[in-house]
């Protein structure tokens, strides 16, 4: 394989990893606060639809992008209502959100089929784009990819170096202590759900505004579920999420290129690669690492005060 193949492959890796990266980071944020949200797929597609719709209505893709996050965040509030107020089981509520989200998006999105909306295209960053190897891979992408470079660092700083982040993590690790300290666990968990939902929604609108510029039913095509898996793969660390998302995107992009180059391996077997690889990596990494623990109170509701 020559460099004319490898560089486009790696650039494609970054792009196809980006929507999954947004979603994974969002779910990490939520899970850090102790809330398991299996509704990622549904929230993501709500984001994809609302992003596309607002971009079309307003003519401004940035507005669409933000609206994608905003609407997804509002939608994920349902999860907060069910789990935090009514103590509903987080697994079921998340699944219900996935069902409701895909249904809503398909129901409301039908008029937008076959339409166009302003979206993002690639912007080459001066100077940086000329770095050998890295330039064409990392700095000839669309603006939303550049945002996704900063995001993991921002989330990491927020979670580990601010008081809000500390309280949020503590709500997932030791909610009783948080409660004793007079801080509202429910507030921080709601915050985790909403900001997480916002990021997941951004990942959705990346699909309909930047990766492609169209809306169809089922545009997320299971990427939300991949994000749920990648959170565990990443051991709940934003930095490792980047690794996971790009690994996944890379294998996807690679198998398509292998086909384009004329391999005779059946495509069903090639498509198994990313999933098999995820299992193998998670198994090896879990065996070695001791740091890969979930937040202690992940998935457990905190009962309201008498």
């Amino acid at each position, binding site marked *: 394989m020559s460099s004319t193949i490898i560089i*486009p492959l790696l650039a494609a890796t970054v792009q196809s990893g980006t929507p999954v990266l947004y979603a994974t980071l969002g779910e990490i944020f939520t899970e850090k606060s102790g809330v398991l949200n299996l509704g990622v797929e549904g929230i993501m597609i709500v984001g994809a639809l609302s992003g596309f719709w607002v971009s079309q209505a307003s003519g401004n893709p940035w507005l669409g992008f933000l609206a994608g996050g905003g609407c997804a965040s509002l939608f994920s509030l349902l999860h907060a209502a069910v789990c935090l107020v009514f103590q509903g089981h987080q697994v079921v509520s998340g699944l219900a959100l996935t069902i409701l989200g895909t249904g809503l998006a398909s129901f409301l999105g039908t008029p937008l089929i076959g339409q166009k909306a302003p979206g993002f295209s690639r912007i080459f960053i001066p100077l940086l784009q000329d770095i050998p190897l890295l330039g064409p891979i990392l700095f000839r992408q669309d603006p939303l990819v550049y945002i996704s470079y900063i995001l993991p660092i921002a989330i990491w700083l927020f979670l580990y170096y601010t008081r809000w982040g500390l309280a949020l993590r503590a709500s997932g690790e030791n909610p009783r202590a948080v409660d004793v300290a007079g801080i509202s666990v429910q507030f921080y968990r709601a915050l985790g759900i909403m900001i997480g939902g916002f990021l997941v929604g951004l990942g959705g609108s990346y699909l309909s505004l930047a990766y*492609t510029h169209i809306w169809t039913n*089922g545009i997320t095509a299971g990427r939300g579920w991949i994000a749920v898996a990648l959170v565990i793969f990443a051991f709940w660390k934003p930095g490792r999420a980047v690794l996971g998302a790009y690994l996944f995107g890379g294998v996807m992009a690679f198998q398509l290129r292998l086909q384009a180059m004329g391999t005779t391996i059946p495509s069903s077997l090639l498509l198994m690669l990313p999933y098999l690889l995820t299992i193998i990596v998670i198994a090896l990494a879990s065996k070695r690492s001791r740091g890969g623990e979930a937040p202690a109170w992940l998935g457990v509701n905190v009962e309201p005060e008498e």
Partner: protein
Amino acid sequence: MRTKSLCLLFGALILLLAAGPVSAKDLKVGFIYVTPIGDAGYSYMHDQGRQAVEAMVGVDTSYVEAVQEGPDAERVLRNMARKGFDLIFATSYGYMDSVIKVAKQFPEIIFMHFSGFKRAENVGTYFGRIYQARYLTGIAAGKMTTSNVLGYVAAYPIPEVIRGINAFTLGARSVNPEVQVRVVWTKSWYDPATEKEAAKSLIDVGADVIAQHADSPAPQEAAQESGVYSIGYNSDMSSFAPDSHLTAAIWKYQNLYRDIVKQVKNDTWKSTDIWAGLDENVVGIAPFGPMVDTETAELVTAKKEAIAAGDLQVFSGPIRDQDGELRVEKGEAMSDEELLGMTWFVENVVGTTQ
């Protein structure tokens, strides 16, 4: 006594609900689709056909979408039959067994099954020769390519898709023997992001025309962004790739469905296999983009007329398969039955049918 009358009242209510307000004379036509109409492609195009039928006088239509081929089809078909539909269109191959089963229970109802091969007294089959349109688009692609590599984004390796790829290749070969068609399977009926990525991977290996058997216009976008040509599918996709879109292989189901419904209304319907193509204007090609030169356009138009008139057959020998083995002798043509079950690639295709 009182409970009994309550029961009666309740039963009457249910009957009332079940009957509904339908005027006696209208022909009730039902459609079942395998995906939601919102898929922007396959079922959407069939539904365009349904709307054309709905516009006819004295015809009433309804549909059920997103019906899984195995587990749910039989139930939905049976319920349609019970609810008094006179003509039912089952628009996906996988409905075949269910159609035959249910048709046996309701001999007075007419069933039409898309793309299948099993028929009965009250079950007919219908299909369109989209491969003829594919052949024509192949000619355009073969003429316009400079790298002699054409890319083809395809969904699933089923005969319908394989036949289209082969027709496209034969068309391209007829004007450019050096040409190579590279195939990438996405293994999904709708996943625009992966379809676009597949198109990009083909462009990366040198393809300068991208064709597709996938529903979304995402591969067109990829071509537009990379500055290569593209060939659309289902409908005219030029609005998504104004600088790339050479033409498209398009379905005109409206004509097909209207004809069948007319036959049923006039009592001339018989169980046959309808396989309509360019001759009956059920398939066609989109207007050429401005980049297509007149020579190419004229050639394609001439071939189109030849196919419609029956003078040219797309799958006529000699045809060799990928391994160079002669599959169709010179002077012979493949039968419809052979076409229906085509599972091998012709020469000049690079890829696997698995």
